């Protein structure tokens, strides 16, 4: 009798079931680790019963967070470098923060070999959890920490070709070894107004000041792709635009200058002039494309930056905005990300802090690959901006800092006033080796007038550290 239909259906079923088996294996191999790291997976909480929390180690091998278990089985967490890595590691109690939170799941999993596991189980000892290897570099972080000294502010350094975060520093900070004391302090009236636990690098909103001129210039280039090179302006140190008076720093007159010179000397008047020619709607679209007012491709906690100009804006809002005052607010992380995109030919690599997961024997359990977020600007635009920003460090506002350095830098300085009394924050954002960019550094130092430490000087210390051991 006719059995062909049964055969057809049976082969189809075998195919579907084999596909399902393959799917489950695929899930286990490629999806499961991410899925089970979900904070809603209640199984995570019970891991610590059998596993001693793993370490956090810098990319150059320094242990910055570790666990010790005493004879009674009580585990304590310690941070050998105290304040230096406070905002990188975060803390392990009170809801956790930083890498202690982001890497929690991995540090509570143990991938040591079965032989060792069995012995530990025989002895009824806890297994050693996996270690989180962070992208942060000990030497660079320490250099940034020392350079900042007593100043408040933030430093973030990112490798533009990969998105690896090499420095993440925020001051003021705290000693994570004393988290119990600090947590109690934070509950007091005095503590509630303290910002020591705020990671300014990712959550601090600042006016971008003159660093924003890079964005204004980008927009000008976009709107005048054929003629921007012919731009010329006569600066007399002061000018009134739509009723708003704009001064250059110390009312210095720059006289006749090109677009390149305007950026190099950070000429406010010239940029206000550029701003008066821009299309508001297009400016808004461009800035939204640069991730203002939107989510950033970053896994940790951060705050969104804001840029408020649009078609309905009044003309008198623009002169301040284009020179980075006005209502624009940006985090050091975001400013660094924009610079990363410029340094990487327009393509932004997603910044990340966890490089890989190792078991206690040093074997790699999981490696996190660089991920491209996409193109923020064209490679031609990136090339022009890089070229012009090189001039900033060659003969412009940052040249005195980098004079005689073994490396070249392209970047932009900034002084952003935050009140009407002339108090300001000092910015630097830029990258070294413009031909083949190595490292993006973004610094903001608060109260420049009080301490006299400039962002550019701090950035230089980080670049120096980078090239001294290279």
């Amino acid at each position, binding site marked *: 009798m006719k059995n062909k239909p049964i055969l*057809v259906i049976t082969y189809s*079923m075998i195919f579907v*079931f084999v596909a*399902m088996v393959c799917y489950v294996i695929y*899930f*286990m191999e490629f999806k499961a680790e991410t899925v*089970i790291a979900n904070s809603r997976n*209640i199984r995570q909480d019970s891991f610590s019963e059998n596993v001693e929390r793993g370490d956090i180690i810098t990319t150059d091998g320094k242990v910055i967070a570790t666990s010790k278990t005493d004879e009674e089985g009580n585990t304590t967490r310690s941070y050998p470098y105290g304040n230096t890595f406070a905002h990188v590691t975060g803390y392990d109690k009170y809801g956790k923060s930083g890498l202690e939170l982001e890497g929690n799941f991995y540090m509570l999993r143990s991938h040591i070999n079965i032989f060792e596991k069995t012995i530990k189980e025989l002895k009824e000892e806890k297994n050693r959890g996996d270690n989180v290897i962070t992208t942060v570099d000990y030497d660079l972080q320490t250099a940034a920490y020392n350079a900042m000294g007593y100043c408040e502010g933030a430093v973030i350094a990112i490798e533009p070709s990969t998105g690896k975060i090499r420095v993440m520093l925020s001051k003021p900070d705290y000693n994570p070894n004393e988290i119990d004391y600090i947590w109690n302090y934070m509950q007091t009236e005095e503590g509630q107004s303290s910002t020591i636990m705020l990671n300014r690098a990712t959550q601090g909103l600042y006016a971008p000041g003159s660093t924003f001129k890079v964005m204004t210039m980008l927009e000008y280039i976009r709107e005048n792709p054929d003629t921007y090179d012919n731009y010329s302006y006569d600066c007399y140190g002061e000018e009134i635009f739509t009723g708003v008076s704009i001064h250059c720093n110390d009312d210095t007159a720059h006289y006749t200058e090109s677009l390149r010179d305007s950026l190099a000397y950070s000429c406010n008047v010239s940029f206000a002039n550029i701003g008066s020619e821009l299309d508001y709607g297009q400016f808004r679209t461009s800035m939204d494309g640069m991730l203002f007012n939107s989510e950033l491709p970053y896994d940790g906690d951060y705050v969104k930056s804001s840029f408020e100009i649009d078609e309905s804006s009044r003309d008198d809002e623009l002169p301040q905005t284009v020179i980075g005052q006005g209502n624009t607010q940006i985090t050091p992380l975001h400013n660094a990300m924009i610079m990363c995109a410029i340094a990487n030919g327009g393509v932004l690599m997603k910044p990340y802090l966890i490089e890989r997961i190792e078991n206690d024997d040093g074997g790699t359990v999981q490696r996190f690959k660089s991920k491209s977020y996409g193109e923020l600007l064209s490679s031609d635009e990136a090339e022009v901006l890089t070229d012009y920003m090189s001039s900033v460090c060659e003969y412009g506002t940052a040249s005195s800092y980098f004079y005689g350095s073994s490396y070249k830098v392209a970047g932009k300085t900034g002084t952003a006033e935050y009140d009407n009394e002339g108090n300001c924050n000092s910015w630097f954002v830029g990258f070294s080796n413009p031909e083949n960019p190595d490292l993006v550094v973004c610094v903001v130092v608060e109260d420049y007038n009080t301490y006299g430490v400039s962002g550019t000087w701090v950035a230089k210390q980080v670049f120096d550290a980078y090239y001294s051991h290279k």
Partner: protein
Amino acid sequence: MLNIICQVSKYLILIFMVLYTVKCFSILLSTDEKDRKKKLNKQIVYVFIIHFLCYLTMYLRQGSVKLLIFYAVQIFVAVIYMVVFHSIYKESSRLLTNNTAFLLLIGYTMLTRLDYSMAIKQFIFATIALFITAFIPYIMSRWKNLRNMGVFYGIAGIFLLLTVFIPGLGYESYGSRNWIKIGSLSLQPMEFVKILFVFFVACMLVRANTLGDIMVNAIISAIFMLVLVLEKDLGAAVIFYITYVCMVYLATSRPIFLIGGIGLGVGAVIAAATLFKDTLFYHVMVRVEAWKDPFKFIDTGGYQVSQSLFAIGTGGYAGTGLYMGKADYIPVSESDFIFSAICEEMGVIFGLCLILVMLSVYISFANIAMKVRQPFYKYAAFGYSILFIIQTLLNLGGVTKFIPSTGVTLPLVSYGVSSVTSTLVIFAIIQGVYVIHNKEVIKHEKEKERLRKQQAALNAGAGIPG
């Protein structure tokens, strides 16, 4: 020490599970009678080892003596079943009895871990069902009228399905009105109606000579599915529909019925999903959304699947070991999501093997359907194979996020009085078909033998040299 024993047991269970699965397929492929017998006996040994190690682990973890008693009773019933069934029906399939016992025992084990009282209840009902369904092959081989009762199956089936709409008797659960409650016993009429449905379709197809006959058959079958859709039991409607299409394809041997059937089904689902997406199909749309990204809807429609994937992923290939995971946190882990619980604590390797064992059961069903010559039995056997495998596919695919979840049980493993009883009836009917077929073959052989002897005697008498 205790830990070590449990750990070693865990890996031994995995090894024997792999061996059992391999045997399932090698028995299917084996043609040598002696070889088959040896392998079947080995399979029984594996079942005992796996089951023993599971209960040993659970006893060590819980230290409760009632587990040991329960274990002994289970093994006793399993042995009686495997030995007695085959000695009564010498022509029955031993591979099928092995698999029946094995799947039931795995179900009892996991249920014991999750909820002891449910395991006891499942065991009692399954044992009663095993006893009663043991008569099915006997009844089938005596009662030849089975194939002439198509009208009865149709009417009884639709009537039974409609009972869920009787106020006070039927009730709704998880968005589908497909349960009835008699005293303290909750039943899903659909589980029994599917048996009647296959018989009904088989009867009609045997008699169908014209396109008109097929049309009448199609209309009545459509009523079944329409009632299921009204009950919002889409999983069951899908099972019925695919079974129906496959049976028509078998009866007609024309691929157009398969292709057309699938096309019509997909079209109907899309049309229904767009027309009734806020009413009748609302909870279906929720499940489809949850399937696309369960973690996005973790607090609503995606909760079950998210928890299931957490369990499977965290347990890993080797599993946490019984009682060492959090399988009891998976929603409805005792019935629809029992596979996730098994994966978490007994390991994904065990789960993968279970998927393949289920497939092998289907292949053995299809094998029987291919051998059988009488159309009615052939269609019925094939229909039941499809019922079984589609239900398995919907369950396993749903809990692993391979396909959207439809809320059906895993045959014989999941908790559910109606589910386990109806599956045992189906297994018994397949055994019945196989017994009838084998008896016929034997009769045929004997007839042939007799004729040959007669011929030989005739030849000898005529003096022709043999």
